[in-house]
């Protein structure tokens, strides 16, 4: 015989069964029965956020840092709609989160009751799947399905909307042990034999092969396999933004990030290659530039767990729907050892050309540049921190100047490009991986979108280091205005509060840095404090991120920083 439990208790017991410890959330009327039941389950730790969007970002940061499902909770109506940007962020970057929302009671659903919103309707296009639980007997299986769907296949957000009276209802209940039944949910696993043969044929005959390494490699746990493939056949590797960490940067075969602000050698290699091996990436427009002229001379192999990504943006020669770890294990034994020395030398020449243009090698006088700050953070954290970012120039500078060695140590909103993502996702990441040194590198614009979570960081005593690169502008938008709108800086110049005083108002130790020689000391200051710290780096106002492929331009039509003798 089962125990008699309320829907709220069933919900929380199901979360515990899924291994949940942290719930990022915010209470309210329609979710109140569940908050009331929380005190019965000390194994659950609720993190009270200051805005529900950030609950989703924290769950997302937790999920990306740990590979486990993050959980966000909110009430009905505005609580639920506030989650939307966070859910869309997780959707675009395939991050496994489960959002639990309270809903008005069943008898008043559809009557425009107080704080009623059709949240399953609202989130339909931005969730992997969602549920409205209208029967308490379906609650437990729904939670189990939600977690299974969120973390399996191509991961993504799942929302479960639970009416208040379902949370209050009581039934005799035991945890169901039968496997969840999802007849229509069958993520692909392995490559078919003809696909393997066709892919090996291309790999073993390529003269100028290139691996495009994406986020999927880390989610599949295939980082060792991609390294083995690259080393066995001496294939260079270009990384997507979210693919940073899929292959160690600094490895002789890793070229660096590709795309709009990618390193020039990666983009040139893509255009010059005779074979692209795209692994767990999706040929986003920020990666391809003009698709009509993209990698014109190459055969293409694309492996992704989501069949709908294959032949979506770029037509490929071998399209494999499968789990990367399994597919690479199928491929590697058939890959012939090769040297590809001519091809690697060509790439090395491109890299040397880029070195000549490198801003870090120049005397920049009194000016403090974002690139210098991020490179110093890299240096003084031993290149081994877990870094989250916002969106914009500082994000691209992080991608360029903070090489990551280990998987899942760079967390950023790539697909949706959500400003304000950096700091809350750092809180989630730090709680998920407390042993990591966590830095949130943010801009003055994005930080002001979610800075209310400073209070959460203090309340939970989360040891994160916040580095604000303050250039007084929405820097990336300003860069576009400079390049494409004749320097008409409409509405990108931005007033900011005194960030140091602001931090102090929250009781957060803070420093302001305006000169290069203060950078090291400030980083040491941040690292020496337990709990959150904040450093404001006042950087060059009108700095540019190079190289840049203008939107829709050919990938090799990069705007480069001039060499010193050309400037």
């Amino acid at each position, binding site marked *: 015989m089962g125990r008699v439990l309320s829907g709220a208790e069933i919900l929380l017991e199901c979360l515990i069964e899924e291994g949940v410890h942290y719930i990022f959330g915010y209470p309210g009327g329609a979710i109140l029965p569940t908050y009331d039941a929380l005190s019965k389950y000390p194994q659950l730790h609720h993190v009270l956020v200051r805005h529900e969007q950030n609950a989703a970002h924290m769950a997302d940061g937790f999920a990306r840092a740990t590979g486990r499902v993050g959980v966000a909770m909110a009430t009905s109506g505005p609580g639920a709609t506030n989650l939307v940007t966070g859910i869309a962020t997780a959707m675009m970057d395939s991050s496994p989160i489960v959002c639990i929302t309270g809903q008005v009671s069943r008898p008043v659903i559809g009557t425009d009751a107080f704080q009623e919103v059709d949240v399953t309707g609202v989130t339909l296009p931005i969730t*992997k799947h969602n549920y409205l639980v209208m029967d308490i007997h379906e609650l437990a299986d729904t939670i189990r399905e939600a977690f299974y769907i969120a973390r399996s296949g191509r991961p993504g957000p799942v929302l479960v909307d639970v009416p208040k009276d379902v949370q209050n209802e009581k039934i005799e209940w035991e945890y169901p042990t039968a496997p969840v039944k999802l007849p*229509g949910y*069958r993520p692909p696993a392995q490559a078919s034999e003809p696909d393997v043969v066709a892919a090996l044929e291309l790999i073993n005959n390529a003269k100028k092969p290139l691996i495009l390494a994406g986020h999927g490699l880390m989610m599949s746990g295939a980082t060792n396999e991609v390294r083995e493939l690259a080393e066995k056949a001496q294939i260079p590797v270009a990384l997507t933004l979210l693919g940073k960490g899929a292959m160690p940067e600094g490895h002789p075969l890793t070229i660096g990030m590709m795309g709009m602000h990618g390193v020039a050698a990666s983009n040139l290699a893509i255009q010059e290659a005779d074979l692209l091996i795209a692994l767990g990436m999706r040929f986003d427009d920020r990666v391809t530039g003009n698709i009509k002229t993209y990698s014109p001379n190459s055969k293409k192999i694309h492996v992704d767990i989501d069949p709908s990504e294959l032949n979506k943006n770029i037509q490929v*020669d071998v*399209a494999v729907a499968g789990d990367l770890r399994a597919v690479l294990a199928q491929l590697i034994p058939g890959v012939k050892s090769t040297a590809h020395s001519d091809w690697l030398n060509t790439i090395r020449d491109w890299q040397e050309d880029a070195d000549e243009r490198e801003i870090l090698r120049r005397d920049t006088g009194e000016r403090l540049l974002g690139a210098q700050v991020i490179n110093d953070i890299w240096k003084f954290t031993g290149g081994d921190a877990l870094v989250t970012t916002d969106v914009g120039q500082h994000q691209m500078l992080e991608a360029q100047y903070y090489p990551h060695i280990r998987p899942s140590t760079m967390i950023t909103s790539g697909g949706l490009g959500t400003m304000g993502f950096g700091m809350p996702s750092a809180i989630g990441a730090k709680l998920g991986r407390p042993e990591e040194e966590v830095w949130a590198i943010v801009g003055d614009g994005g930080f002001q979108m979610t800075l209310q979570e400073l209070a959460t960081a203090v309340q939970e005593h989360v040891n994160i280091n916040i580095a604000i690169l303050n250039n007084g502008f929405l820097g990336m938008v300003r860069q576009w205005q400079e390049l494409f709108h004749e320097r008409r800086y409409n509405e990108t110049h931005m007033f900011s509060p005194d960030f140091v005083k602001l931090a102090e108002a929250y009781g957060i130790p803070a420093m302001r840095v305006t000169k290069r020689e203060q950078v090291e000391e400030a980083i040491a200051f941040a690292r020496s404090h337990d709990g959150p710290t904040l450093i404001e780096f006042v950087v060059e106002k009108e700095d540019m991120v190079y190289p840049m492929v203008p939107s829709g331009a050919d990938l090799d039509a990069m705007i480069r920083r001039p060499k010193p003798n050309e400037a």
Partner: protein
Amino acid sequence: MPENMSTKHTVVALVENQPGVLMRVTNLFRRRNFNIDSLSVGRTHRPQISRMTIVVDSARANAQRIMANLLKLVPVIDVANVGADLHVSRDLALVKVRSDDADSRNALTMIVERYPARIVDIGNLYAIVEITAQEDRVEQCIHELEPIGIVEMVRTGVVAMGRGARILDSSYERTAQPSTNGYHV
């Protein structure tokens, strides 16, 4: 004779019979900017399974992309590109036309004889013609009825089924198994 025009794809989906499935499917087509030409849904012989026949304008998407996106929807159990192989497809129209004089009634009778159509209701003012045929035959019939004077019309949209052993299995017990949806070009 081809069963459908080459500019269209006829895709069949077996879906779990639960609230919101139709919305998920139509939302997908809207979001991906695939144009739905017609969509019809109905129960199957298994009460928990419904079957949809979706005719899509192919200008923006190939059948492979449409099917891969449909299969991503959790309640979609299976999908087939029925239009790509031998199949039977039917559209049904009810057409209300003028029947208030001898000419119109004679014309009606003659047209109906040449199509898989019949007059299912006739009065002093109006008659209802039912036609069940391939979509292009339905179109032709309607075209012929037009001069008589159509006052009202309804169509079900195309339903389709593969011929012979081309069976879309609706067994509910089909459980998770590896399947590659990849293909060579």
